[in-house]
């Protein structure tokens, strides 16, 4: 019978270790991309508000833009990043499944 990468993983051979490390690296890369997308936007926000005090003078629905921008828009952003990430991570797992146990 043909040995699949799954068997290598299950028996913890050196070869299997390579597959495992590759999976972990791919997942970590995906998480890192999502983190950069999130961190870049939210991390820049306090600095932007500090350097651009003009936001305080623009009013949206009677509330200064500087408050509005912190209070509401970040939440849909979190959800969007979360949804996209979860979808990609699941797809990554499916391709790993196909890789280590090719459908015969």
């Amino acid at each position, binding site marked *: 019978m043909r040995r699949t990468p*799954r068997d290598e*993983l*299950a028996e*913890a051979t050196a070869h299997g*270790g390579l597959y*495992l490390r590759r*999976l*972990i690296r791919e*997942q*970590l890369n995906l*998480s890192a991309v*999502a*983190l950069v997308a*999130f961190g870049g936007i*939210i*991390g820049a926000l*306090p*600095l932007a*508000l*500090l350097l651009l*005090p003009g936001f*305080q003078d623009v*009013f949206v629905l*009677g*509330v*200064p833009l*500087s*408050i509005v921008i*912190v*209070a*509401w828009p*970040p*939440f*849909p952003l*979190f*959800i969007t*990043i*979360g*949804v996209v*990430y*979860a979808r990609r*991570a*699941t797809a990554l*797992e*499916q391709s*790993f*499944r196909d890789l*280590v*146990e090719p459908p015969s």
Partner: protein
Amino acid sequence: MIAIAAIAAVTGATLGLGVYGVRLARTTSDLFVASRAITPWWNAAAISGEYLSAASFLGIAGLQMKLGSGALWLPLGFTAGYLALLLFVAAPLRRFGAYTISDFAEARLGSPRVRVLAAFVVLGIAGFYLVPQLKGAGLTLGEVTGAPYWVGVVAVGAVVALNVASGGMRGITYVQAFQYWTKTFAIALPACLLLIHLGGLPERAAMFGAELPQAPAAGLTVELDAPQPVTFPEATSYTVDGAPRQAQAGDEVVLPAGTVELPPGAVVPVAEGIDAQTGEEWARPVDSSGDASPVFVYSLLLATFLGTMGLPHILVRFYTNPDGPAARRTTVRVLGLLAMFYAFPLVYGMLGRVLVPELYLTGETDSVVLALPEAAWPGLGGELLGALVAAGAFAAFMSTASGLMVSVAGTISFDLWRRGHADMTVRRRRFRVAALGGVLAPVALALVARELDISVLVGWAFALAASTFCPLLLLGIWWRRLTAFGAATGLIAGAVTATGLIFTGLAIENGHPTVDALLTQPAVLSVPVAFATMVLVSLRDRRGRRAADAALLAMHAPEGLGLGYEEPLVRA
């Protein structure tokens, strides 16, 4: 009266659902993780219900009223924490199958000693977090019934301990989901109705313009039970028990107990620890110095972003997901549910500045959510809405405190009590004794910690969690070379740095503003210290190396390949 009935109803429903749930719990696995058969929506509501604490329900609005719009970073960080959990922890940890962080530490690192160390950190974080819940309870009951502070503290402590001792996680999952909807309804409905009733935001100049908080058109009357030291930002006349008095700008006065009256339009004096801010200063989410300085904001964001995953009552709930992808789906739903809730607290913070300025005088800004409805809407409408927010606040204390007590009781009864006893009845008895005993210390601390802001106390819990369990989890899940010794030294280094800075901040006053910011919210220092210690010590610890591939395979291998652990690791 209506408020008391509403609080009693929420408490009764909580106890009832808990008792109903325990009938369904049959095995230890049931008791702790509800047999993992709960759908993502139920799970997400339960996680959110457990998470939205006194800090979210009362503390954000209170801190916003007191310090200004810098408090708006809190809900952002509280939610972003679940994004960190989703990206790095949720699915792998669920697959690994350990129930608690202590279980994770032992199973991943093969060291019972790290487990005991982790157990002590759990107790530390839970303690920091339980105290403000109980404080909120004392405050709320005092606000609605006039009962002394200690009554609410002791009552909620007792109810929660009984509830946890009698119910298991299964009961708690439905209870917590119920609490989420109670809280969201209780904060959203009054916020919307008040805005409609007032026709938008009244007196915007006081909120966003050049004005300091002022007494309303009818004047301001405050009953003081005890002498209250205040600072007058501007000269004004006022009366104490009818006797006229005069204050100059900058006067520091101790107002005697009695009835204090301010004339219409007078600038409200502020209690110790509060700076009188113009609307414009108050509306700035970031400022070049002070409580909204960039250092403080970034440190707070870091603490909440990384600290959420280390809160002991949150991770347990992820094991009720059937598999890794379900854990991810649950976390995404949590992001949505939290976003819905956090749209509303700032309405209270903004309205409170104009409608209940007497809280600046008494210093009790933490009760703005409770005081606002009746102040904004005199009569039955305000009373009903006041009862609703009081009930929501109680749901907040009870749900978070219950979740924390489950962790505390589990930690004491399994990790610290002499282990190795497999008998179910003995285990259950220990769990109950631990639940009843474990509530005593936080109750005692809450009775003496009345002065501290709810959100500040909770900020410390996040800082401690971010400096201990966050590096343990992230490195344990993603880095093969983490050793038990490295993890242990990192845990100790992070915990000592974080608590050391916090207590130094309590002991010394008025240093450099940046130093003050770091002492109040030390995460930006203590998190790197913990990470660096874990990595460096692990790299040097040649003897402690062990094959971690099996554990990492179980965490990362997709379901359906037969490569993961099929059964839970510990305690099964």
